[in-house]
C-alpha cells in the first residue's frame, strides 16, 4: 500500500485557498464531485442549500485542477437548471426525419419506452448483432454499461468519441512513442515549447486547470519560450513569444523542415538515445524492410566496434551505426536513421517556406533554438535519481490531426521530439497513464522486434505496431481495411450508403446514443450523417436537452445532469507529479422528478432481453471487480451498490463508496520512475515504421480483390508532406480561403452555447459567433468588420457576421467554438454562428487511409451579404 497524501499538499498552491475544502467548511454542505462540462473532468465542491445548487468551486484536494475551475465549469449551474431540460421519455410521431423536421414528440411511460427498446434489441441480436450501433460520450460508467452490449451480444460498433478527428493519431502515436494515452508538457522544467495546431498550456487540452498555471509559471518565472504555429491568432498565439502563421494542411512540411535543420544542418540529435532506445540503428534493405537474422528472425544493427551486424537483443552489441551504408548478407543496407536523414533532406527551409508560407530564415532559427535548448546530454537529479534533462517539447494535436494525411502530418511533428530524446523525461513530452505502480501495475513492455508496447491499463486501442493484416471487411467501419488504425467509425455513414460495394450484408438497424451531439459534431457534411441516421429503424437517445442529434431519435429518454449523476471513473495522475489520484463523481441533488439513472434503465432493458446475467459477467471484468465483490447472476443491483463493489475491489474494503462520497478523492504518492518513465522503459521507440511496408502491400492485395482503388501512398515508413485537396484548390484560385476550426477557452462542445452565461459572453466577444477574416481578404471582398457575409463550401452554405482582423492567416477563415445549431431544444443557440462540420466535404477521398481521420480543411468562398441579421 502506498503512502496516502492530503491532496492540497501535492503541489503548493501559489494562492492560499483556505477553507474551501469540505472538511474545513463548518456549516455549509460542499459536496465533492467531478465536473462534466468537458472531458478534463476537474474535481469540484458543489454548495447545496435547501436541495438546490447555489455554487460550484474547485476542489483544492485534487492534483488535476488544484482548486481551480474554468469558465465552462463555472457555467455548469445554468446547464443543470436549463429551462429546456427533458424530464419525460418521448416518442417520435412524425415518421419523416431530417434537418429542422419537427419530430412531433409525444410523452410515453418508461415501461413503454423500455419495452420498445427491448423488443428491437432482441430482434437485432437474434438476426445479426452487427445491426446494433452504440454511441457513448463523457460519462465513463454509463459508457461501460452500455458498451457491455458489445461484449455480450457481439456488436463491433461502440463509438466512444465524438469529433471526426479525435483520437485518430494522437493516441496511436502516443502509444508508439511514449507508451501512454495522451500528451502533456512537463512545464515544471520545460524551457522551450512549440505548440503546433494546439493551444496546450494556454486555452485547451486535457488537464487545463493544472497545465495553464504551470505553463504560466514557466513562461513568466523561468522565461520559457513559447512558439505557436497556427493559422489562427488564437489565445495561445496571443501569449506566445512568437506566432508563426502557417497555411493549414502543411504541418508535415514544417515538421520535416525542422528535422532537416536538426539532423542535416545543425546535426543536433540525441545519438545515444536513438541508438539504445529507438529503431534508428535497425538496418533496412532496398525493399524498405528490416534485414533480419536468418535464425532468430530478429532485426539486425551494424556494430561499429566489431564491424559486423548483430541483432537488437544481442548482449555484445557495441556502438551502433546510425548513418552510412553497409553490406550485410550480400545486399547494401542503411540504418533507418540514415533513411530518415535522406528523406528530410528533401525539405530544406526554402522549400518549406513555399509550402507553409513560414519564412525559411525564421524556421531555421526556431529549429536551431529548439535543438540547442534541448541540452542533449544534460541530466538532472530529482528525488536522488539522475534523469536525462531535455527541457523542450513540440506539442501538437487537433490541428495537424484533422487532415486527409493526418498520420504524416502528426508523425513528422512527433519525430522532432524523438530525435532530441525528450520523451517522458524532465522538461519534455510526456504522456498520461504510461507507467502505473498502484493499485494495478501497468508498464510498457518489449514486444515484437524489440519495440515497445503499452501497458494493459492504457492500451485501450488497436495499435499501429505491429498492426493487423488487412482482410475483406465484415464491418461497416471497414476496420479490416485499416491495418494500423486505432478505430475507424468515421467511415460508417459513408459505407452505409452502399454496403454491398464493400461486400457487406448488413446495415445498422438500431442505434443507442447518450447525450452528445454526434450529428452536429461527429463527422463532416451533416446531410450525409443525417441520411445515415434516417436509414436506421430505431434510434434511441439519452438526453439532457433535445439537440440536433435527438431530433432524429425515435425514442428519447431523459438523463440526469452531471450534478445528479454518480460515476466511479478511473485513476489518473498528472504527468511528472509525485502523486496519483482517483476521484469520483457523485450526485449532489435529487434527480429532477421523472428522470431515472441511465445505468439502471439499461439494466431493465438487459433484464427484459434476458441478457442481464451475461452483462454482469462482462461487467465483473470491465469494472475489475474482485471476489467477494463480484456481481452474482440471478440478482439485481442498483448503480450505488455496483459503485461500492468497484471501489472496494480496486482500493480495498476501507475505501468503499461511502468513503469516496465523503472525501471525493483519494491521493497517493508515487515514485520518480512513474513520474518520468522515459529511460526505465525497456522497449524501443520507432522512428521508422517498417511494418507499414507489409501492411500496405497486404492492404493493396485485398483492395485489388475488392476492386477498390485507394491511393496507398500514405503507407510509407517515413513521413512526407502530401497536400490536402483544398491546398490545390486555393493555389488554383477555385476557393477564397481554407476554413479552419479553432477553440476558445470558454466554449466546449455544443452544450456551451445553450448555456445562457456562455451565450452572453459569445454575444459580447465577436470572434465567438463571428468568423475571423483577414483584413486583406476582407478588403478584396468589400467586407467591413461586423458585416453579414455568406460563407460557402461544396456541401454547405451559411450566413454570419465577419470579424475582420489581422490575427488570422490571409488565406484562412477562422471559425471558433461549436455554433450553428438549429434544434428546437436549444432556443438560445439557434441561428447563431456556423456549424463548422456542415461546411466539410465528406467521403473516402476526405479521410486518411491510415487513421480514418476526417480532413478539416473547409474549401470556402466568401462574399458580402446584403441586409441585417437573419
Amino acid at each position, binding site marked *: 500500500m502506498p503512502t496516502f497524501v492530503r491532496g492540497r499538499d501535492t503541489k503548493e498552491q501559489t*494562492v492560499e*485557498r*483556505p*477553507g*474551501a475544502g469540505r472538511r474545513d467548511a463548518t456549516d455549509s454542505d460542499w459536496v465533492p464531485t467531478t465536473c462534466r462540462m468537458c472531458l478534463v473532468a476537474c474535481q469540484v465542491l458543489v454548495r447545496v*442549500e435547501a436541495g*438546490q445548487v*447555489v455554487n460550484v*468551486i*474547485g476542489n483544492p484536494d485534487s492534483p488535476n*485542477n488544484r*482548486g*481551480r*475551475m*474554468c*469558465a465552462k465549469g*463555472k*457555467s455548469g*449551474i*445554468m446547464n443543470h*437548471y436549463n*429551462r429546456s431540460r427533458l424530464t419525460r421519455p418521448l416518442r417520435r410521431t412524425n415518421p419523416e426525419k431530417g434537418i429542422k423536421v419537427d419530430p412531433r414528440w409525444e410523452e410515453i411511460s418508461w415501461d413503454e419506452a423500455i419495452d420498445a427498446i427491448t423488443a428491437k434489441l432482441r430482434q437485432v441480436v437474434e438476426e445479426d448483432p452487427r445491426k446494433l450501433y452504440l454511441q457513448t460520450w463523457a460519462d465513463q460508467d454509463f459508457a461501460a454499461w452500455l458498451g457491455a452490449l458489445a461484449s455480450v451480444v457481439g456488436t463491433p460498433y461502440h463509438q466512444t468519441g465524438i469529433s471526426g478527428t479525435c483520437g485518430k493519431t494522437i493516441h496511436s502515436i502516443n502509444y508508439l512513442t511514449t507508451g501512454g494515452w495522451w500528451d502533456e508538457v512537463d512545464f*515544471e522544467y520545460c*524551457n522551450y515549447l512549440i505548440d503546433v495546431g494546439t493551444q496546450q498550456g*494556454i*486555452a485547451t487540452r486535457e488537464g487545463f486547470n493544472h497545465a*495553464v*498555471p504551470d505553463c*504560466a*509559471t514557466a*513562461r513568466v*518565472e*523561468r522565461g520559457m519560450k513559447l512558439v505557436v504555429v497556427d493559422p489562427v*491568432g488564437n*489565445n495561445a*498565439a*496571443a*501569449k506566445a513569444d512568437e*506566432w508563426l*502563421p502557417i497555411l493549414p494542411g502543411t504541418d508535415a512540411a514544417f515538421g520535416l523542415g525542422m528535422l532537416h535543420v536538426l539532423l542535416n544542418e545543425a546535426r543536433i540529435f540525441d545519438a545515444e538515445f536513438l541508438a539504445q532506445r529507438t529503431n534508428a540503428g535497425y538496418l533496412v534493405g532496398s525493399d524498405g524492410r528490416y534485414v533480419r537474422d536468418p535464425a532468430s528472425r530478429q532485426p539486425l544493427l551494424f556494430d561499429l566496434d566489431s564491424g559486423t551486424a548483430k541483432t537488437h537483443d544481442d548482449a555484445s552489441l557495441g556502438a551502433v551505426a546510425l548513418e552510412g551504408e553497409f553490406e550485410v548478407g550480400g545486399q547494401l543496407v542503411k540504418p533507418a536513421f540514415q533513411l530518415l536523414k535522406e528523406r528530410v533532406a528533401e525539405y530544406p527551409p526554402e522549400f518549406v517556406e513555399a509550402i507553409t508560407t513560414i519564412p525559411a530564415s525564421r524556421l531555421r532559427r526556431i529549429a536551431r533554438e529548439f535543438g540547442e535548448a534541448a*541540452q542533449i546530454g*544534460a*541530466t*538532472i*537529479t530529482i528525488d536522488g535519481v539522475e534523469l536525462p534533462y531535455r527541457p523542450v517539447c513540440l506539442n501538437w494535436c487537433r490541428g495537424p490531426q484533422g487532415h486527409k494525411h493526418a498520420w504524416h502530418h502528426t508523425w513528422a511533428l512527433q519525430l522532432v521530439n524523438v530525435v532530441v530524446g525528450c520523451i517522458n523525461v524532465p522538461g519534455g513530452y510526456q504522456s498520461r497513464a504510461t507507467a502505473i505502480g498502484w493499485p494495478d501495475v501497468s508498464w510498457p513492455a518489449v514486444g515484437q522486434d524489440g519495440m515497445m508496447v503499452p501497458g494493459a491499463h492504457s492500451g485501450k486501442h488497436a495499435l499501429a505496431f505491429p498492426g493487423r493484416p488487412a482482410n475483406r471487411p465484415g464491418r461497416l467501419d471497414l476496420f479490416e481495411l485499416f491495418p494500423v488504425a486505432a478505430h475507424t467509425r468515421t467511415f460508417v455513414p459513408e459505407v452505409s450508403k452502399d454496403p454491398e460495394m464493400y461486400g457487406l450484408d448488413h446495415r445498422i438497424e438500431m442505434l443507442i446514443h447518450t447525450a452528445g451531439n454526434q450529428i452536429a459534431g461527429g463527422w463532416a457534411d451533416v446531410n450525409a450523417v443525417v441520411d445515415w441516421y434516417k436509414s436506421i429503424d430505431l434510434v434511441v437517445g439519452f438526453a439532457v436537452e433535445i439537440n440536433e442529434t435527438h431530433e432524429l431519435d425515435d425514442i428519447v429518454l431523459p438523463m440526469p445532469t452531471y450534478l445528479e449523476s454518480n460515476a466511479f471513473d478511473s485513476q489518473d495522475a498528472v504527468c511528472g507529479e509525485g502523486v496519483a489520484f482517483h476521484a469520483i463523481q457523485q450526485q449532489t441533488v435529487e434527480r429532477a422528478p421523472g428522470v431515472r439513472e441511465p445505468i439502471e434503465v439499461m439494466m431493465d432493458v438487459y433484464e427484459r432481453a434476458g441478457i442481464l446475467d451475461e452483462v454482469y459477467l462482462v461487467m465483473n471484468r470491465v469494472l475489475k471487480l474482485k471476489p467477494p465483490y463480484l456481481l452474482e447472476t440471478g440478482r439485481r443491483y442498483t448503480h450505488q451498490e455496483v459503485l461500492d463493489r468497484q471501489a472496494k475491489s480496486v482500493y480495498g474494503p476501507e475505501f468503499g463508496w461511502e468513503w469516496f462520497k465523503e472525501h471525493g478523492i483519494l491521493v497517493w504518492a508515487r515514485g520518480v520512475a512513474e513520474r518520468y518513465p522515459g529511460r526505465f522503459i525497456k522497449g524501443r521507440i520507432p522512428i521508422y515504421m517498417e511494418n507499414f511496408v507489409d501492411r500496405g502491400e497486404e492492404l493493396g492485395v485485398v483492395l485489388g480483390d475488392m476492386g477498390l482503388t485507394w491511393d496507398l501512398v500514405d503507407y510509407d515508413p517515413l513521413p512526407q508532406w502530401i497536400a490536402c485537396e483544398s491546398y490545390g484548390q486555393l493555389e488554383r484560385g477555385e476557393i477564397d480561403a481554407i476554413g479552419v476550426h479553432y477553440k476558445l*477557452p*470558454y466554449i466546449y462542445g455544443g452544450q456551451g452555447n445553450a448555456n*445562457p*452565461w*456562455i451565450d*452572453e*459572453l459569445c454575444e459580447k*466577444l465577436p470572434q465567438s459567433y463571428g468568423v475571423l477574416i*483577414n*483584413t*486583406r481578404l476582407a478588403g478584396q471582398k468589400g467586407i467591413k468588420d461586423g458585416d453579414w457575409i455568406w460563407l460557402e463550401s461544396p456541401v454547405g452554405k451559411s450566413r454570419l457576421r465577419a470579424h475582420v482582423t*489581422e*490575427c*488570422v*492567416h490571409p488565406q484562412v477563415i477562422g471559425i471558433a467554438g461549436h455554433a450553428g445549431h438549429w434544434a428546437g431544444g436549444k432556443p438560445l443557440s439557434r441561428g447563431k454562428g456556423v456549424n463548422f462540420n456542415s461546411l466539410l466535404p465528406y467521403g473516402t477521398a476526405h479521410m486518411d487511409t491510415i487513421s480514418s481521420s476526417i480532413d478539416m480543411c473547409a474549401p470556402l468562398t466568401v462574399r458580402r451579404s446584403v441586409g441585417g441579421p437573419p
Partner: protein
Amino acid sequence: MTRMGFSIDLERCVGCQACVIACKTENGTPRNIHWMRVLEKEEGAFPDARRSFTPVRCNHCANPPCVAACPTGAFVQRADGVVVVNESVCVGTMACLTACPYYVPARYDGGDGYFGKKLTMYEEAKYSNFREGTAQKCHFCYPRLDEGRPPACVEACPADALNYGDLDDPESPINIELQRRRHFRPREELGTDPSTYYLVGKGGGPAVGVS
C-alpha cells in the same frame, strides 16, 4: 489598519474568462451585468498582430469618486478599504458610474432571468440578494474575505494570474509579488489611488537546477 489590494498578472492571464463566470456563479449577477470582465484588444499588423487580455473589476480605490458622488451615501468604504453598496439606501441615480473612471458600477433594473420570465431556483436564490433599481458592483467577495477565503475570481483563475492581500502588511502575498514584478496601477493620474496592481513583464526567476 488593513487595506485589501488586488493584483492582476497580465503576463500570466490567458484570457479564458473563468474569473468572469466564477464571479457570476458566486454572486448570481443578473443578465448583462458583469462585476468582472476580461477585455480583449488587438494591435499590430499581420503577421506581428497580437491580442491582449486585460481583466478589469472595481479597483476599490482609497480615494473613491463613487463614494464622493453618491448622493444617498449608499457607497461605503469598509475599514479594510473594500467599497460596498448599501442597497437599502441607493435610489439609482447612477452618479457613481458617472464619477467612476473605470466604468464599473451597474444598475439592476429587474427584467427577466436568463431563461425568460420564470427564474430558475438558482436565480431566485441569488437575485434575492439584490434590490431592484439599485447600483451593484464587485464587493471583493467580502463575505469570503470575512471567512478567510479568497475572492471567487482569485480561487477560480486557472492561470493563477489573480492574487490579493493586505497592502499594509509587508509580508502579504501581494506585497511579495509587487517587490518581484514590474507593475502599474490603472489610470493612476486620475488621483483615485486604486488598490489594483497590474503586473507586467517576465519574472525572470532562476532556471531550475541543471547539472
